[in-house]
């Protein structure tokens, strides 16, 4: 595991100050007031992946190694971004942490407990969201609590709270198809947060959104992260987005997915996608990423020809 130490990156330093610049981009009242708890990464890990490999059979019967010996530690309250070309297994990795699949080799530990199935301490926000179209917005948010057996009165209260948190109070009784893409994202976020997870897993959640909506959701996500203090593992193919949000960025290689490099992002918050420092930092990672993207394009091209 090598750590890039040029420019904005310093090896293994993850002390990020959360602050509001005077006249910064935070909306009034939306500024983070509580900084998440920062713990030295060597002490305890919230999530640790030890030697994770995943192999599966493809349609034509051949075996494909999707993930190969992934080792990662995520500290409590950390915001880790995972980037990589499409097909590097980054979504699969999140599914493993969520406990929806089992790795072929290696272990996933959360708070030093072995993950062997889904649990509401780790909630995954899927790329396609997976909101339930037969339920209203409020009922979607309530779902996880209902499964957990939270009493009805408390559920109602927490639904209200989370609706306010994502600014959707007026849409409690709407159905999912009546909402815009950005609003659906926020419902998914609220639904995940309502179960009060320690770890939030996000799979390219903002990939399909327009730029303005995405910027807004970046701000909101950062605020919610600061308020709840949860650990976030965020998968994206957008390097700038990773720098914008993450305390640390892990770059995966193309098939099989390995951790190619980790970068500590030591830029002050709040950041913005258009900040020159963000762009500069992104370029560092992009150079490494490009190599992997080329591999993925080549593989795709071969696939077409074959």
């Amino acid at each position, binding site marked *: 595991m090598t750590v890039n130490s040029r420019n904005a990156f310093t090896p293994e330093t993850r002390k990020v100050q959360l602050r509001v610049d005077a006249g910064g981009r935070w909306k009034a009242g939306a500024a983070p007031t509580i900084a998440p708890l920062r713990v030295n990464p060597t002490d305890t890990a919230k999530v640790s992946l030890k030697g994770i490999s995943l192999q599966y059979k493809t349609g034509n019967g051949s075996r494909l190694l999707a993930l190969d010996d992934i080792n990662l530690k995520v500290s409590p309250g950390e915001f880790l971004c995972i980037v990589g070309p499409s097909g590097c297994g980054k979504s699969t990795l999140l599914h493993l942490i969520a406990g929806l699949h089992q790795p072929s080799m290696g272990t996933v530990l959360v708070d030093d407990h072995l993950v062997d199935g889904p649990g509401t301490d780790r909630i995954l926000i899927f790329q396609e969201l997976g909101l339930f*179209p*037969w339920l209203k917005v409020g009922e979607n948010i309530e779902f996880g609590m209902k499964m957990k057996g939270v009493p009805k009165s408390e559920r109602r209260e927490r639904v209200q709270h989370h609706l306010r948190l994502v600014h959707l109070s007026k849409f409690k009784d709407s159905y999912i198809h*009546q909402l815009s893409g950005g609003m659906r994202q926020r419902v998914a976020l609220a639904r995940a947060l309502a179960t009060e997870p320690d770890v939030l897993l996000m799979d390219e959640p903002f990939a399909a959104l327009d730029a303005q909506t995405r910027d807004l959701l970046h701000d909101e996500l950062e605020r919610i992260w600061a308020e709840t203090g949860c650990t976030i593992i965020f998968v994206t193919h957008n390097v700038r987005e990773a720098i914008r949000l993450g305390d640390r960025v892990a770059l995966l290689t193309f098939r099989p997915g390995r951790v190619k490099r980790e970068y500590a992002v030591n830029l002050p918050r709040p950041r913005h996608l258009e900040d020159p420092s963000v762009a500069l930092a992104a370029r560092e990672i992009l150079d490494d990423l490009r190599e992997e993207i080329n591999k993925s394009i080549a593989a795709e091209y071969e696939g077409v020809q074959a």
Partner: protein
Amino acid sequence: MKSVKKVGKHVIFYAALLGIWALLAKLKIWPSYVFPAPLGVLQSLRDGFADHSFWIGIGVSMKRIIVGYALSIVLGMVLGLGVASNKFLEETMGGLLVSLQSLPSICWLPLAVLWFGLTEKAILFVVVMGSLLSITIAMEDGRTQMPKIYRMAGRNLGASGLKLFWYVLLPASLPFILSGLKQGWAFAWRSLISGEMIFVSLGLGQLLMTGRDLNDMSLVIAVMILIVVIGFIVDGLIFRTLEKRLQYKWGLTSAT
């Protein structure tokens, strides 16, 4: 405006139909016990309801269809989900189910009588066999067509076992199941009427046979009208409403 026009069309159509019917009866080409006039049928309807025989027939038939259909749904669910979740069964039994569906439910009648005698059970058996296959196939389709994401999302949010089935898998696959449920109901209704014809069973099918025994064609047509109307009401009130609700929730209706 549109609906007024639509109603108008219907009024004209049915008036013309009745007119032709009345005219043909008036011409007395066939004797009236073979081809009754509309008024005779109306009289039979009135008599049937007045002496409660129609009410009893409807009541008995409805009770049977509810029990039979409910049984079909439960069995179809078990069978369909079983078949869908097992690759071997899906490849082997899946084909058998589809080919068995081409068997008219009345074919089960001799078998039912031999097994259960001239009893309620025999009728129920025919009803269940009539609708079970379409419901099983519908459940199987629903299970395989349902987007996988809902299952994962449900598990992710802490649902498992029966809760996962009841709160996630079932509602998620309902749009794919509903047309099969509807078809199953139609088959159940037809099978019931034919099943009821076999012995003195008080149902609507039996009323048809009574009409035949008494050479009372108006009674036969009156009961036929009843059967059609009940089928129409159940389809319109229950299944259409369900369909519309689903379409609204899932956002499948075009903006009106």
